[in-house]
Protein backbone atom coordinates (compact mmCIF):
# COMPACT_ATOMS: atom_id res chain seq x y z
CA UNK A 1 0.00 0.00 0.00
CA UNK A 2 1.08 3.52 -0.75
CA UNK A 3 1.80 5.42 2.36
CA UNK A 4 1.94 9.18 2.71
CA UNK A 5 2.87 10.38 6.16
CA UNK A 6 2.87 13.84 7.65
CA UNK A 7 5.04 14.83 10.57
CA UNK A 8 2.27 16.03 12.88
CA UNK A 9 -1.49 15.61 13.15
CA UNK A 10 -1.90 18.73 15.27
CA UNK A 11 0.33 21.75 15.58
CA UNK A 12 -0.03 25.01 17.49
CA UNK A 13 2.29 27.89 16.63
CA UNK A 14 2.53 31.56 17.45
CA UNK A 15 2.18 34.41 14.99
CA UNK A 16 5.51 35.16 13.37
CA UNK A 17 7.04 31.73 13.92
CA UNK A 18 8.63 29.81 11.09
CA UNK A 19 6.73 26.57 10.61
CA UNK A 20 7.81 23.41 8.81
CA UNK A 21 5.32 20.78 7.72
CA UNK A 22 6.92 17.58 6.51
CA UNK A 23 5.51 15.00 4.14
CA UNK A 24 7.05 11.67 3.19
CA UNK A 25 5.85 9.11 0.65
CA UNK A 26 7.23 5.63 0.24
CA UNK A 27 6.27 4.75 -3.33
CA UNK A 28 8.86 6.61 -5.39
CA UNK A 29 6.23 8.96 -6.84
CA UNK A 30 7.39 11.84 -8.99
CA UNK A 31 4.65 14.30 -8.12
CA UNK A 32 3.85 15.65 -4.69
CA UNK A 33 1.36 18.28 -3.61
CA UNK A 34 0.45 20.51 -0.70
CA UNK A 35 -3.16 21.61 -0.18
CA UNK A 36 -4.98 23.50 2.48
CA UNK A 37 -8.53 22.63 3.37
CA UNK A 38 -10.94 25.18 4.78
CA UNK A 39 -14.68 24.80 5.43
CA UNK A 40 -16.72 25.64 2.37
CA UNK A 41 -13.65 26.07 0.17
CA UNK A 42 -12.63 22.49 -0.44
CA UNK A 43 -8.99 21.75 -1.11
CA UNK A 44 -6.87 24.50 -2.56
CA UNK A 45 -3.49 23.80 -4.06
CA UNK A 46 -0.59 25.67 -2.49
CA UNK A 47 2.41 24.19 -4.30
CA UNK A 48 3.32 21.06 -6.16
CA UNK A 49 6.53 19.41 -7.24
CA UNK A 50 7.10 17.06 -10.15
CA UNK A 51 10.71 16.23 -9.39
CA UNK A 52 13.48 16.78 -6.89
CA UNK A 53 14.30 20.48 -6.55
CA UNK A 54 11.43 21.37 -8.89
CA UNK A 55 8.39 23.26 -7.69
CA UNK A 56 5.39 24.97 -9.15
CA UNK A 57 3.02 27.46 -7.56
CA UNK A 58 -0.53 26.39 -7.09
CA UNK A 59 -3.52 28.64 -6.63
CA UNK A 60 -2.63 30.12 -3.22
CA UNK A 61 1.17 30.18 -2.80
CA UNK A 62 1.39 33.52 -0.97
CA UNK A 63 2.94 33.18 2.45
CA UNK A 64 4.28 29.70 1.74
CA UNK A 65 7.38 28.13 0.30
CA UNK A 66 8.38 24.51 -0.32
CA UNK A 67 11.44 22.36 -0.44
CA UNK A 68 12.06 19.07 -2.19
CA UNK A 69 15.62 17.91 -1.66
CA UNK A 70 14.80 14.21 -1.87
CA UNK A 71 12.21 12.46 -3.98
CA UNK A 72 10.31 11.04 -1.03
CA UNK A 73 10.10 14.23 1.02
CA UNK A 74 8.19 17.44 0.32
CA UNK A 75 8.23 20.17 2.94
CA UNK A 76 5.89 23.11 3.28
CA UNK A 77 7.30 26.19 4.99
CA UNK A 78 5.43 29.07 6.51
CA UNK A 79 8.10 31.74 6.74
CA UNK A 80 6.19 33.86 9.27
CA UNK A 81 3.00 32.22 10.40
CA UNK A 82 -0.14 34.33 10.54
CA UNK A 83 -3.55 33.63 12.01
CA UNK A 84 -5.11 33.36 8.54
CA UNK A 85 -2.92 30.33 7.93
CA UNK A 86 -4.80 28.38 10.56
CA UNK A 87 -6.09 25.46 8.53
CA UNK A 88 -5.89 21.77 7.72
CA UNK A 89 -2.90 21.01 5.52
CA UNK A 90 -2.95 17.94 3.31
CA UNK A 91 -0.04 16.42 1.48
CA UNK A 92 -0.50 14.10 -1.48
CA UNK A 93 1.62 12.12 -3.88
CA UNK A 94 0.54 11.07 -7.31
CA UNK A 95 0.98 8.15 -9.65
CA UNK A 96 -1.15 6.22 -12.09
CA UNK A 97 -3.91 8.79 -12.33
CA UNK A 98 -4.74 9.02 -8.66
CA UNK A 99 -3.54 10.95 -5.70
CA UNK A 100 -2.75 9.39 -2.37
CA UNK A 101 -3.27 11.62 0.63
CA UNK A 102 -1.64 11.86 4.00
CA UNK A 103 -3.70 12.13 7.20
CA UNK A 104 -3.40 15.91 7.35
CA UNK A 105 -1.92 18.39 9.81
CA UNK A 106 -4.29 20.69 11.62
CA UNK A 107 -2.33 23.87 12.21
CA UNK A 108 -3.49 26.54 14.60
CA UNK A 109 -1.69 29.87 14.63
CA UNK A 110 -2.39 31.97 17.72
Amino acid at each position, binding site marked *: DVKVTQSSRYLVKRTGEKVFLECVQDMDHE*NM*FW*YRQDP*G*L*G*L*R*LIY*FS*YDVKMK*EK*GDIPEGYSVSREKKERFSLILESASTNQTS*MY*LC*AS*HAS*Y*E*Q*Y*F*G*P*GTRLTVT
Partner: protein
Amino acid sequence: AQKVTQAQTEISVVEKEDVTLDCVYETRDTTYYLFWYKQPPSGELVFLIRRNSFDEQNEISGRYSWNFQKSTSSFNFTITASQVVDSAVYFCALSEALDKFYFGSGTKLNVKP
Protein backbone atom coordinates in the same frame (compact mmCIF):
# COMPACT_ATOMS: atom_id res chain seq x y z
CA ALA B 1 -13.44 30.52 -12.37
CA GLN B 2 -14.50 27.53 -10.40
CA LYS B 3 -13.58 24.40 -12.32
CA VAL B 4 -15.53 22.01 -10.12
CA THR B 5 -18.83 22.88 -8.49
CA GLN B 6 -20.53 20.85 -5.83
CA ALA B 7 -23.65 22.85 -5.18
CA GLN B 8 -24.86 20.69 -2.28
CA THR B 9 -23.06 21.81 0.85
CA GLU B 10 -24.70 19.31 3.16
CA ILE B 11 -27.21 16.50 2.74
CA SER B 12 -28.98 14.53 5.45
CA VAL B 13 -30.70 11.23 4.79
CA VAL B 14 -32.03 8.38 6.82
CA GLU B 15 -30.32 5.02 6.57
CA LYS B 16 -31.36 2.92 3.55
CA GLU B 17 -32.34 5.95 1.50
CA ASP B 18 -30.64 6.50 -1.84
CA VAL B 19 -28.71 9.73 -2.23
CA THR B 20 -27.06 11.47 -5.19
CA LEU B 21 -24.18 13.88 -4.87
CA ASP B 22 -23.87 16.31 -7.75
CA CYS B 23 -20.69 17.43 -9.45
CA VAL B 24 -20.43 19.86 -12.35
CA TYR B 25 -17.08 20.59 -13.94
CA GLU B 26 -15.67 23.06 -16.40
CA THR B 27 -12.81 22.51 -18.82
CA ARG B 28 -11.84 23.31 -22.38
CA ASP B 29 -9.55 20.33 -22.71
CA THR B 30 -10.73 17.28 -24.60
CA THR B 31 -8.69 14.99 -22.38
CA TYR B 32 -9.31 15.20 -18.70
CA TYR B 33 -9.91 13.06 -15.64
CA LEU B 34 -12.59 13.16 -13.00
CA PHE B 35 -12.36 11.78 -9.50
CA TRP B 36 -14.39 11.24 -6.37
CA TYR B 37 -12.85 11.12 -2.91
CA LYS B 38 -14.35 10.36 0.47
CA GLN B 39 -13.15 12.08 3.63
CA PRO B 40 -14.47 10.31 6.72
CA PRO B 41 -14.39 12.00 10.14
CA SER B 42 -10.87 10.65 10.67
CA GLY B 43 -9.73 13.14 8.01
CA GLU B 44 -7.79 11.11 5.46
CA LEU B 45 -9.07 11.38 1.90
CA VAL B 46 -9.84 8.05 0.30
CA PHE B 47 -9.88 7.60 -3.46
CA LEU B 48 -13.17 6.20 -4.79
CA ILE B 49 -13.08 6.42 -8.57
CA ARG B 50 -11.35 7.90 -11.58
CA ARG B 51 -12.91 8.48 -14.99
CA ASN B 52 -11.21 9.77 -18.13
CA SER B 53 -13.02 11.96 -20.62
CA PHE B 54 -13.16 9.28 -23.28
CA ASP B 55 -15.01 6.81 -21.13
CA GLU B 56 -18.60 7.85 -20.54
CA GLN B 57 -19.69 4.45 -19.43
CA ASN B 58 -21.37 4.57 -16.06
CA GLU B 59 -19.80 2.56 -13.30
CA ILE B 60 -21.21 0.60 -10.43
CA SER B 61 -19.27 -0.67 -7.46
CA GLY B 62 -21.45 -2.31 -4.86
CA ARG B 63 -23.78 0.35 -3.48
CA TYR B 64 -21.89 3.11 -5.29
CA SER B 65 -22.55 4.25 -8.84
CA TRP B 66 -21.33 7.10 -10.96
CA ASN B 67 -23.05 8.85 -13.84
CA PHE B 68 -20.72 10.69 -16.21
CA GLN B 69 -22.43 12.91 -18.78
CA LYS B 70 -20.23 15.05 -21.00
CA SER B 71 -23.25 16.80 -22.50
CA THR B 72 -24.03 18.40 -19.15
CA SER B 73 -20.44 18.38 -17.79
CA SER B 74 -21.57 16.38 -14.82
CA PHE B 75 -20.14 13.47 -12.88
CA ASN B 76 -22.71 12.54 -10.25
CA PHE B 77 -22.29 9.98 -7.50
CA THR B 78 -25.14 7.89 -6.13
CA ILE B 79 -25.12 5.82 -2.98
CA THR B 80 -27.86 3.21 -2.89
CA ALA B 81 -29.29 2.07 0.45
CA SER B 82 -27.10 4.45 2.41
CA GLN B 83 -25.51 3.39 5.67
CA VAL B 84 -24.27 5.31 8.68
CA VAL B 85 -20.69 4.48 7.65
CA ASP B 86 -21.24 6.50 4.47
CA SER B 87 -21.32 9.67 6.55
CA ALA B 88 -18.41 11.74 5.32
CA VAL B 89 -17.44 14.68 3.18
CA TYR B 90 -17.26 13.77 -0.49
CA PHE B 91 -15.11 15.65 -2.96
CA CYS B 92 -15.27 15.70 -6.71
CA ALA B 93 -12.07 16.64 -8.54
CA LEU B 94 -10.88 17.39 -12.05
CA SER B 95 -7.43 17.06 -13.54
CA GLU B 96 -6.53 18.07 -17.07
CA ALA B 97 -2.86 17.20 -17.40
CA LEU B 98 -2.53 15.14 -14.24
CA ASP B 99 -0.26 17.79 -12.80
CA LYS B 100 -2.83 19.90 -11.01
CA PHE B 101 -6.02 18.67 -9.43
CA TYR B 102 -8.99 20.95 -8.92
CA PHE B 103 -11.32 20.04 -6.10
CA GLY B 104 -14.89 21.06 -5.47
CA SER B 105 -15.88 22.50 -2.12
CA GLY B 106 -17.22 19.14 -0.96
CA THR B 107 -20.60 17.78 0.09
CA LYS B 108 -21.08 16.68 3.66
CA LEU B 109 -23.31 13.63 3.83
CA ASN B 110 -25.04 12.79 7.11
CA VAL B 111 -26.68 9.38 7.24
CA LYS B 112 -28.88 9.01 10.28
CA PRO B 113 -29.85 5.63 11.73
